[in-house]
């Protein structure tokens, strides 16, 4: 009944036997104890469980754990680099892009996907990119600013690097 999977999560490889019906989000939360990824709905509409699978934003409730076999997964817990916050994490703090914090991991991961495709998004592009993620606290106003903050920071870093 159980199926063996091998997944790389936040740089570490895990092997587990999972039930075929186990959702990726359940695997992350219940098996790996990575509770930073949240569940806010049962219809794949809220985006709280958004993570990166092979670099692309995925709502981890829309994917079975077995489908992640052989993939590279990144969750909110893997965003900071040796204790140095990711620019998006910094952006959300600097611009007060979170209140209760429940949607925040999903917002950050969805924003990471956006910035990987478009390093200098307009306000409208940010709003459209995050339209799969509900926030009930911020009215999205400061989330937009947080993403802009991060984009600026990443671009500055890249400029310096080049």
């Amino acid at each position, binding site marked *: 009944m159980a199926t063996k999977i091998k997944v790389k999560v936040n740089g570490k490889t895990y092997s587990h036997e999972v*039930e075929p*019906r186990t959702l990726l989000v359940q695997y992350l*939360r219940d098996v790996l*104890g*990575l*509770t*930073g*990824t*949240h*569940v*806010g*709905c*049962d*219809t794949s*509409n*809220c985006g*709280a469980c958004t993570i990166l699978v092979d670099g692309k934003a995925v709502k981890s409730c829309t994917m079975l754990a077995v489908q992640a076999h052989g993939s590279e997964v990144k*969750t*909110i*817990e893997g*965003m*900071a680099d040796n204790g140095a*916050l990711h620019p998006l*994490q910094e952006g*959300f*703090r*600097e611009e*007060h892009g*979170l*209140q*209760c*914090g*429940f*949607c*925040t*991991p999903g917002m*950050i991961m969805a924003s990471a996907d956006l910035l990987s495709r478009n390093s200098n998004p307009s*306000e*409208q592009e*940010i*709003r*459209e990119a*995050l*339209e*799969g*993620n*509900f*926030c*009930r*606290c*911020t*009215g*999205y*106003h*400061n*989330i*937009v600013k947080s993403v802009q903050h991060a984009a600026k920071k990443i671009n500055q870093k890249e400029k310096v690097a080049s």
Partner: protein
Amino acid sequence: MTNYIGKAVKRVEDKRFITGKGRYTDDIVLPAMAHAYIVRSPYAHARIISVDTSAAEAMEGVIKVFTGKDIAASGINGIPTGWQVNFKNGETMKEPPHPLLVADKARYMGDAVAVVIAETKEIARDAGDIVEVEYEELPAVADAKKATEPGAPLVHDDAPNNLCFDWELGNPKAEVNEAMSKAHHITTLEFTNQRVIPNAIEPRSAIGHYEEANDKYTLYTTSQNPHLTRLLMCAFVLGIPEHKVRVVAPDVGGGFGSKIFHYAEEALMIWCSQRLKRPVKWTADRSEAFMTDAHGRDHVTKAEMGFDKEGKIVGLRVKTYANLGAYLSTFAPCVPTWLHGTLLQGLYTTPKINVDVTGVFTHTVMVDAYRGAGRPEATYLLERLIDTAALEMKMDPAQLRLKNFIPPFDGVKQPGYQTQVALQYDSGNYHGVLNRAMEMVGYEQFRKEQEAARKEGKLLGIGFSTYIEACGIAPSAVVGALGARAGLYEVGQVRVQPTGKVSVYTGAHSHGQGHETTFAQVVADRLGIPMDDVEIIHGDSESVAFGMGTYGSRSLAVGGSAIVKSLDKIIEKGAKIAAHKLEASEEDLEFAEGKWTVKGTDKSVGFGDVALTAYVPHNYPAGLEPGLDFSSFYDPANFTYPFGAHIAVVEVDKDTGKVALKRFIAVDDVGNVINPMIVDGQIHGGLAQGIGQALFEGALYDDNGQLINGSYMDYTMPRADDLPSFELDRQVTPCPHNPLGVKGAGEAGTIGSTPAVVNAVMDALSPFGIKNLEMPLTPERVWRAMNS
């Protein structure tokens, strides 16, 4: 000097949230924890003929199934309500029992019938699917007004006509009728302030943990007020001594009112854990949240406002049917009455007001406080009336408001304003906020643009809303006289550690409001120490002595004031120790920037030094107790009254009826501000929810009492691309009766924004002769109105 107050200090709580280290109830895993799934009625009204649990109990991994009969046999009580509103004739309100699991009848779709406890959540759910419940479906009623009509199906046999209470406030009806009969113009609106669903993104969750060895219970729960939950659960439902129960509300993912109330699932998890001697966790999925979290609003209202020839308001008459749902939730009776009727003075000098409210049971989810709670309904009513009246009387809606505003008063030199509906406003300057908002929107210029746009066939509209709210609930004696069954003070303990570091315990609870930052700013400034030396602790009944929790924008005004009281005691006692150390008299000392100095000298002793001395009292004032640790209860002298002016600018698409919100301006006066970044954030979020009600949201029940849009697939909430960036400004009129001068900011955005948006759409649609449409203003509704 202040180092922190008034500054946009970044939040100290953020680090755990942005790194995925928040700890919400569903994240908690206890050893040997079992999982619960609740079997719920698919019918709004049904007799329960039988419940067969045998197949479910035979399933591998199932520990136990309990039904309503087990609950009834155990002799425990149902969920109580915390507020009593009687009938006008003095009869006690109807307060039907609300058992944790029903045995005889289901009274709303979602009513709990049985609970399955299993080794995993999946097994519990699988087993729940094969609990066989035989129902006899009965006719149901979901609409409050229809529920009062003769022949309507009864929710409770002992509540005739489904009436819970009827209630009246203000001037006698005859006086108001007399004033209205002399009016030059009367504007009448009949509308539904539709039911909305709070939808905190974290679904509710509860873990009951009974430890037999020491006969102790712990409840982890998604609560805005763990102490109140403990009190209600222990004293009224389960009959467990309170000192044996610890309630923890860890990180909570938003509440907006819906997590104030004591819910059946909380007591049920404790009860199950006690029976099974294992921790038991229940977490709602979203569909379950839709049909079990208390909903908000749901008023059916007729409102009439009379004006004289010059446009001065001469009277207001209001009749509302308030839907309470199937059972009474914790604050349900208070919301449509004392939190709604009392706000109908608004910002206006209306001389005669009468409001009449009928509280009604229906076969729907409980209705209780949702962000604003009663005040958004009052504001919607008033502000829609004013804009409609302006249209009817061909007056400018802004000028009509300015003409009727209560003149400025600070509550110190000028007295507070006594309304016709029981309240005394603390301080206000209503012209200031509206004038500023008009300046920001460029009002005269906008009207010109609107005129030009209309010629090109474009439908631009502008809408106003000027609101007041009553926050900082509340003086205990006052609310007690009004039917509250609890006091509404707050508790704040300040424990100075021997090293001068400070632990602060507050009965307020943060579920997004940022108390760990704001409260620390207050403490650090008052004591003259770095914020890093201050830790705010909340949400655990074991560490925090007591508390009434967070709702009604009360945390800083009431909870912050309790902390200030304790800080004053700390400084007072510290002065005695400092005087002893400095060999000076207390009167010669001044306390500033974290040290006591002998006035006019450079002789001083620091806060840390005094703290250490308090705990190592070798050389110490005679007769003074060691230690530096004070707890205070703060019971406010009055409510606080924030106010503001909101302006919405919309464009309606003629072809599709879609409303685009182009601009939203909010000028709010919430009194003094400790952290402007956090206050702005509160306003933003409030605006989004109020705009949500105007344009997108609304619970839909069909005639059988089925909630037909109970999921995120079906219930529309604002998404990032539905909203503009908001334009905010602030005016500061301090609260005269609390030590921080603060009024509260949590609900302002929601209260003010809804009517501004609807007024803007009506303004845009005025060329069609459309005066009133029901919310939410969906494209379909707007399109149909334009094309009928």
